C-alpha cells in the first residue's frame, strides 16, 4: 500500500548523522531493516510510536522526519 501523502526525511537524516546505515537505525528503533526500507520508500506508514522512536533516534521533532502532504488530501476529496 503506497502512502504518497506521507513524506519523510529519513534518508537525509541518516546521512547527516554520520552516514547511519539502515540496519543501525533499525536496531535503534527495534524494527527490521526491511521496515526502514519500506518507510524510506514511502511504501509503509509507521505507527505513531515508531514514528516517535525514529525521531528520537535522530534527536529531532517528529515533524522534521515526517511531513503530511496537504495537497494530496485536497486532490483526494
Amino acid at each position, binding site marked *: 500500500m503506497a502512502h504518497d501523502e506521507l513524506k519523510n526525511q529519513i534518508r537525509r537524516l541518516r546521512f547527516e548523522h554520520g552516514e547511519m546505515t539502515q540496519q543501525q537505525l533499525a536496531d535503534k528503533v527495534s524494527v*527490521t531493516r526491511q*521496515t526502514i526500507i519500506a518507510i524510506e520508500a514511502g511504501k509503509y506508514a509507521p505507527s505513531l510510536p515508531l514514528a516517535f522512536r525514529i525521531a528520537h533516534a535522530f534527536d529531532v521533532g517528529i515533524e522534521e522526519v515526517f511531513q503530511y502532504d496537504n495537497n494530496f488530501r485536497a486532490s483526494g476529496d
Partner: protein
Amino acid sequence: MTQKEEAWIGLFLGVPILVIPSAVAVFIAYDKGLSFAPVLMFTGTVIWGGLLWLLPYIQRQFSKDKKKIIFDERDRLIHKRAVMASYVALWIYFVAACVITWCIVGPNGSISVNVMPLTLVGGLVLFNCVQSLASFIQYRRGAEDGAR
C-alpha cells in the same frame, strides 16, 4: 529467518509436507479399506502441520543472535492481512464444497463420511497456501526499492 523466508517455506515446503502424507494415507485407506484411516490421516496431517509451524520457534531457540529483531509492527500487519485473506478463502472453499457436493449428489443423495476429514485437510492446505501467497505478495510489494 525472516517472515518472507517463512512465507516461502510455508509455500514450497509446507504444501508437499501436508499433501504427501495425506495422499499416501488416502491411498492406503482406499487400497486397504481401513475404516480408521481417515482419522489417522487427519491426525498425521495435523502433527506434520504443527511441526511446520513450530519450525521458526525451534530455529529461533538455536539462533546465535536472539536479540536480533525479526518480527515488528509491519510484519504483524502483513501477517494479520494474510490470515484475513486465508479465512476469506477458507470460507469460499467451505461454501463451494457444500454447494458443489449438493449439485453433484442432489438434494436426496448421500456421501461417504470419509469426505469430511478430506475436506478439512483440503481446507488446511488451502489456508496455508493462501497465507503464504498473501504474505509473499505483500512483502514483495512493500520492499521493491530503496534497499541499500
